[in-house]
């Protein structure tokens, strides 16, 4: 047992930091620190910088652009870029459909899609959730009926994050309506420009537009856009969801947010003195920091266990802890950030959302505080709600 980073790992960490210093423009970083949502052009820019360096898709097979880093190095890279903060790669391409294509796609699909994903030439979105399905993903209703060399797809997807920017959507569709729930589902790649694909925005309670409904009406999809075998889509979906976990704790992001809380708490006054000097406030913040430090080590333990047995891509059920604690901590930090602002959390800064030209209200850094708190209620809901995660642990780990 040795809980220190090796010298090689420390050197790698410094290399990442140096790369970030040199290559990430300060204004992109500043926007992220401000709590602004990432802009498409920023993410495209940054993805291409990473791709040129060969770091766009570290966890992919080396033949498709992966770095061959062990899980610990991958973790260090993730942690450093989150803490910095740098824009995080578009998960729908890099972490979701990419690995699915790399693992289950045919040679043509790999050759065509993977380089475009790594370079963010194609913006991907996810077509899994449907209205009324929620955590019961397999109850999906969207149907794809074979018609010659096409599937004709009809149905509705929802909670499609950043779908408004998307070129492609990967969908779970029902190809065998007779089969039992999880059977009869296929994994289909759909060009968003196909006639019959319509994207409608969903405004969330923070006032932002992050998610969408996607309506699919008689959408004709070439059969070569099927990934793997027909009716085996559920297996690929499980594989995909299992890959989510490394990132889900978001330790680096929470560290960055805590740094931001400290920074702003030094500016806001309470009782005529900086809030950061208020022992009670620091106690609350410290309590979160402790939880975060523990989570970081919990995550490292999961990563190390992965490293040891080889990355099978199968989730360790104990990693549901990462989702539960990670989301709790993220929510605690957004709540604290709002608390820092006191009464100044109240104004709704329209310009943040719709680009209108009202003059900023002081302090302008308060603009994202309450929306951030509202928005982050989602993290204990999506990706399998925390209740679902606890069910998983109860069954798979505790045997209840």
């Amino acid at each position, binding site marked *: 047992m040795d809980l220190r980073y090796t010298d090689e790992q420390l050197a790698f960490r410094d290399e990442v930091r140096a790369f970030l210093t040199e290559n990430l423009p300060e204004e992109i970083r500043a926007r992220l620190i401000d709590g602004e949502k990432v802009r498409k052009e920023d993410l495209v820019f940054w993805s291409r910088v990473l791709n040129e360096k060969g770091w766009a898709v570290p966890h992919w097979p080396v033949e498709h652009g992966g770095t061959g880093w062990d899980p610990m190095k991958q973790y260090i890279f993730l942690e450093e870029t989150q803490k910095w903060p740098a824009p995080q790669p578009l998960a729908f391409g890099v972490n979701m459909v990419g690995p699915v294509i790399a693992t289950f796609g045919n040679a043509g699909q790999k050759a065509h899609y993977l380089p475009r994903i790594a370079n963010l030439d194609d913006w991907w979105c996810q077509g899994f959730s449907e209205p009324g399905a929620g955590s019961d993903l397999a109850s999906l209703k969207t149907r794809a009926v074979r018609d010659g060399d096409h599937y004709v797809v009809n149905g509705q997807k929802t909670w499609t994050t950043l779908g408004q920017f998307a070129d492609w959507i990967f969908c779970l569709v029902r190809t065998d309506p007779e089969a039992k729930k999880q059977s009869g589902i296929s994994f289909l790649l759909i060009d968003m420009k196909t006639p019959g694909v319509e994207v409608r925005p969903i405004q*969330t309670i923070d006032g932002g537009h992050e998610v969408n409904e996607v309506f699919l009406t008689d959408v004709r999809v070439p059969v070569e856009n099927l990934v793997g075998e027909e009716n085996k889509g559920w297996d690929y979906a499980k594989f995909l969801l299992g890959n989510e976990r490394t990132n889900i704790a978001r330790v680096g992001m929470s560290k960055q947010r805590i740094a931001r809380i400290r920074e702003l708490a030094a500016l806001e*006054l309470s009782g005529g003195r900086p809030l950061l000097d208020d022992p009670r406030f620091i106690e609350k913040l410290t309590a979160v920091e402790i939880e975060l430090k523990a989570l970081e080590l919990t995550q490292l333990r999961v990563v190390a266990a992965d490293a040891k047995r080889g990355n099978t891509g199968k989730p360790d059920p104990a990693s549901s802890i990462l989702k539960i604690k990670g989301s709790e901590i993220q929510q605690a930090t957004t709540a604290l950030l709002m608390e820092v602002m006191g009464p100044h959390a109240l104004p709704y800064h329209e310009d943040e959302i719709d680009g209108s030209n009202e003059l900023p209200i*002081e302090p302008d850094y308060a603009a994202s505080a309450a929306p951030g708190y509202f928005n982050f209620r989602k993290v204990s809901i999506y990706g399998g709600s925390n209740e679902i995660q606890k069910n998983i642990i109860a069954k798979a780990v505790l045997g209840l």
Partner: protein
Amino acid sequence: MDFDLSEEQSILKDSLDRLLGDTYGFEDRKRYMASAEGWSPQLWSQYTEMGLLALPFAEEDGGLGGTAVETAIVMESLGKALALEPYFTTAILGGAFLRYGGNDDQRARYIPAVAEGALKLAFAQVERNSRFDLHHVETTARKDGSGYVLNGQKSVVLHGDCADKLFVTARTAGDVRDENGIGVFLVDATAQGVTVRGYRTQDGLRAAEVTFDNVAVGAEAVFGDAENGLPLVRRVVDTGIAALAAESIGVMSAMHALTVDYLKVRKQFGVAIGQFQVLQHAAVDMFVAIEQARSISLYATMMADSDDATERTRAIHAAKAEIGRGGKIVGENAIQLHGGVGMTMEYAVGHYFKRMTMLNIAHGDADYHLRALAAMGGLLAA
């Protein structure tokens, strides 16, 4: 001890609930919010007709002689409807300034106008660096002849953009954080040197930044003791917090009702999700939090009219702390139990959640009031 409403009180509650039920549907509210005012002038007239604006004032002043109990009834109903109108700032905060701080002339001049719905009021108190401290006042009021000249800036003035007149705290003497030397002034929103910049709040109401640049007011603008107005301010804010406590009960109850309904109709894995014991218990936790909040809100209501400032303030601190705690439990669980739809603007529960969140910040958050109460020696120490 009697927790029942009198016949008049029941009528008040029922008729207001009926009015709001008819006029405050989800789409109605969206329309009011999108309008120029950001609320419904028509409903304002109807509140006036119902006597809501005359309610808190003494009969001899032209009011209806309602107590904190009647105010609580009204506020709970407005909370359930997520009403947007400037009732709280005009009738409750402004009304309390008039009742507790107004001399005969001031009462005679302004109360009838408020009661008729012709005068809207707001309270310009928060400043950039005041956080929740009522005695942190950087805005100055310099004596000038028999009047004063005001300079300074006020933040997050609720309904400040529609108010005809503003109650303003300003420093007549002493240092920024002195308890003495604070005066209360009633300033015309259109007076020379007053700049009002309105905006929407996170919960869909309206507020404003207000700047005072050499604003001259006469002696008649002073409410209470210009050199020692803080006790008046505290009393007004106590009255306001008791009212917001009642509004919070309305907001929480509505969220809970929506959530329980949703648990009954929403199906997952082939059953109504209300069949899952964990979700049932979460709904029970909300229920318990609401009943406790309702109890402490009753306590605040009971004490709100008390002249004993210590006992009153204890109750107010307790209410704010308990409702802040409970409101968070109820709001966060309401969203969690709704899942994704709770996160959307097209579903009511998120709007309640945002309102509850902002109510928890208004006039001091739960921790602020807990600490203040602890600093008084606690609740049961007396």
